[in-house]
């Protein structure tokens, strides 16, 4: 609904409101550990990235190599399942281990200085398959003229499933704040998800893709993932704080609580999140006429 309110408000103040960049100086933060990682059922390389906080307006990227000597363990139902290894070229810890549906995962990160961080338990759940995935040109509404990405699926009966969808266009992961796509099943429990437009590629984005990949056909990969309620709530607030900001109907800034804590102190949190998810994948190709 936020998106609609946003569109509405933009409409009403179309002719007079304006945004511009202003120069501000922000203080540097007290350094805090950031842990960002995942394990899924997908046959892929899973990652854990360790970094630190920095000034919001800093033009530098955070250093992901500072903690390259850390020990990163994954526990499955309490047993050590895999150890993520640092990859110097991607600057992240990696593992090809795959999660299994119905199991519980905990990440353990031992930093070089001896401090240990643990994630809260993440449990993988059932994931419905994607029945069909296609692209069609939108002929009306907000997305008129764009290429809508549409899929069908069936939501399993029983409230409590939470989903995230990840899109890759020609292998490029779509991960800007507005690209975060997630939902809970409360309003659609047990229903056929027929022809749900998930995202939309406008002309500008299409031209960019053609330019960056050198191909006029877009190959679209969609991951439908079942995530935990904790992760759903984390995504919700991350999007709230990075995409829907500044306007009268946006939420004021708020701290974001992750699920990683210092082993001896539950309230002492690292930033970031470790999630475990079950994944179903589909792909399609589209070339505008």
């Amino acid at each position, binding site marked *: 609904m936020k998106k*609609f*309110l946003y569109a*509405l*408000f933009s*409409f*009403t*103040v179309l002719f007079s*409101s304006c*945004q*511009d*960049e*202003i120069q*501000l100086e922000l203080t*540097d*933060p007290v350094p*805090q550990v*950031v842990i960002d990682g995942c394990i899924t059922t997908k046959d892929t390389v899973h990652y854990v990235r360790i*970094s*630190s*906080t*920095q000034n*919001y*307006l*800093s033009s530098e*990227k*955070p250093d992901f190599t500072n903690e390259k000597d850390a020990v990163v363990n994954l526990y499955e139902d309490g047993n050590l399942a895999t150890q993520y290894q640092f990859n110097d070229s991607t600057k992240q810890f990696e593992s090809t281990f795959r999660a299994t549906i119905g199991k519980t995962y905990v990440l353990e990160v031992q930093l070089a200085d001896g401090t240990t961080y643990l994630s809260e338990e993440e449990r993988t759940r059932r994931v419905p398959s994607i029945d069909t995935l296609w692209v069609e040109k939108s002929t*009306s*509404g*907000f997305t008129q003229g764009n290429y809508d990405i549409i899929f069908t699926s069936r939501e399993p009966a029983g409230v409590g499933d939470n989903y995230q969808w990840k899109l890759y266009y020609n292998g490029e992961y779509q*991960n*800007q*704040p507005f690209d975060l796509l997630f939902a809970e099943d*409360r*309003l*659609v429990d*047990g*229903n*056929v998800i*027929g*022809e*749900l*437009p998930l995202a939309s590629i406008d002309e500008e984005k299409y031209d960019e893709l053609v330019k960056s990949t050198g191909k006029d056909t877009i190959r679209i990969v969609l991951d439908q993932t079942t995530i935990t*309620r904790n992760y759903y*709530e984390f995504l919700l607030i991350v999007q709230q*704080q*990075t995409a829907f*900001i*500044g*306007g*009268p*109907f*946006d939420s*004021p800034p*708020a*701290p*974001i609580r992750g699920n990683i804590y210092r082993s001896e102190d*539950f*309230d002492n949190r690292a*930033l*970031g999140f470790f999630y475990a998810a079950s994944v179903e994948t589909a792909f399609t190709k589209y070339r505008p006429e």
Partner: protein
Amino acid sequence: MKFNLLLISFLILTASATGQSSLKHTIKGYLRDVTSNENLVGASVIVSELGSGTVTNVYGFYSVTLPEGEYTINYSYVGYKSISVKIDLKKDVTKNINLELNQEVLKEVVITAEQNDANVTSVEMSVERIDIQTIKKIPQLLGEADVIKSLQLRPGVSSVGEGASGFNVRGGNIDQNLILLDESPVYNSSHLFGFFSVFNPDAVKEVTLYKGGIPARYGGRLSSVMDVRQREGNSRQFSGQGGIGVLFSRLTLEGPIIKDKMSFLISGRRSYADLFLRLTEDFRDNQAYFYDLNTKVNYTINDRNRIFLSGYFGRDIFGFGDDFRVEWGNFTGSVRWNHLVNDKLFMNITGVYSDYQYNLGIPSGSQAFDFRAKILTTEFKVDFTHYLNPKNKLEYGLDLHFFDFLPGEARGLGDETIFSEVKVPAEYTVMPAIYLSNEQKVGDRITLQYGLRYAIFYNIGPLDVNLYRYGVPTQQSDIIGVARYGEAEINAQYDGLEPRFAANYLIDKKQSVKVSCMRTRQYMQLVSNTTAATPFDIWKPAGYYIKPATADQFAVGYFRNFKGNMWEFSAETYYKVLQNVLEYRDGAELILNEHLETELLQGDGRAYGLELMLSKTAGRITGWVSYTLSRSELKVDGFQVADYYGAQNGVNKGEWYPSNWDKTHDLSVVAQYDLTTQWVISGTFIYVTGRPATYPSGAYVWDNITVPLYDSRNQNRIPHTHRLDLSATWTPVRQGKRWKSSLSFGIYNVYGRKNPYSVFFRQDPDNPGRTQSMRLAIVGIPVPFITYNFKF
């Protein structure tokens, strides 16, 4: 026990005030406008020999009881010629007085006559009244005269930003204002999300805003009461007025149904930008309009009985083809019966119905759905004004409110939809209340007003209350069952006394010192997790987990008039303490939430400030300068559950933080200059400290998204706001016999300042690797306007 003691002391005070007797008679009657026969509210009735008197009540009625003798009674009202009447009082008399509008205002004559001194002499303090003619001359966005935006130019009244819904009074949130339209509650006072208020200035007679010293007859909100009274309609002759503006067109028709006995008023406004949008290809299928309709009928049965029927209906409708449709609005209606029980006792019986509802949805396709929510209010009340003697005016009454909260139901539409039906259970509440207050003159210099209000609030079934593992609503996963309450079964009950006290000490005829203190209670609060309130925010009643909020306010003021009351000066300072104000958790989901209590926290507030006001009420230049220095803070602790893992730390780690509407300095200058008989020039200048904001104390990268790190809430401030608005009104000399017209034009935001609504931080959409700080200005350019007004 506390209640009994207060009641006894109240009765003793009142008894001592009434325990005088000798041969006395009563002068009573109504004060009305000579042209339209409309009642004049708050007009002064002064007995010259005593130097004191009374004011007319909201129905224009007055009553004064005096010992036998000869008296000169002076009747006066702002903007009207005063009348003095000599009376040889030997028996009870009725004096209905018709006052004539002071046309000298329109001529090039500087008024030298004595002006009304009510601001110094009355016991009222912390009250703002702006007459509707002044409101119509204040330049506003797109030239639309606006009751609420005009009140925001008075000390102690502000808003979170340009175009924001509602208003904040003395550090209170917008839901702490009781907004009444002919006694019916109005839950959303804005059109177009907050750009314009729902009150049509052509239909409004009188607006009174109580920021403090709220009389005991009002209850249910912490910070203020805004009492809006609609006009009754001209009962002498058929007439009309209207206007054609950039945004709205207005038309009001009024006239007698039975001359001098029964009249009607019907007044409508509609925005019409959408009619032009339909001419364009891109917006053909879109709808974007809002309208309101005010109606009133009154019937004077005889000198002792009068009936009023009032109605208001307003809607905002936006539709974007088949993509989205949203609609919201208020419907209010009231029936009132004024009855003069005897010469000293005035009774008013009121029945009120109010329905605020909003719905939104997608009409067709796989995401087709319909969402609706509403709040219904039904109220019955009886109020008495008892004019005991010139020194005592007693007010008492009782009321019974029923509030039905339907926080939302959503259902899928059509065969293709993916959505099921979800309904958040309704909550039903009942609130009976009684009140008693007296205004007493003690000697020549002291006036007291003391009163008590007592209300009981019941949250009743049918309702299923979620039960939580630790007894407090921590999180959804801690729900261990439900407690089922049957029809009309009480699941929560709250009650409390609300003492009110005010005193005026007249230093001399020109200056006075006033004090007031009051306790107010609020049994429903608005839950909003956005910077400005939206039409879709949820009203949450006190209940099993949510306690009612209370506020205690203490205020002291100095009032002084100069040059025959032509200049008025006031300085007021206040201190307010709030308890159990509602806050939402960080990241809260509010819409269609069946366990909303887990997203809410209750905390404390404190607000204090100094308000200065200098106004010039007569002459060719009129206007005011108002300045407020204030602070408004909140403190919200989390749940205190010892063994609850991951303890909730409240907002801002449980430390005090400035509220979103905390504005240190707030200056307004409003001036109107009668240049010639044809030309009137008006201007407004405002300067306001930027509101608190939270800037990131750092950032981190998560899944390639730069996530801001926020530590403490509202520790920074956005840049300050200042703005100049100008307008001119031209009234041609040559006017028709009945048809009179004028043309107003002007510029809002003359020097085009980009006043920041917010400062926010984001990844550059064109270069996601870069972060930037942004300023949002709602009206960043000069906006011209022109309006044609007419009367017949």
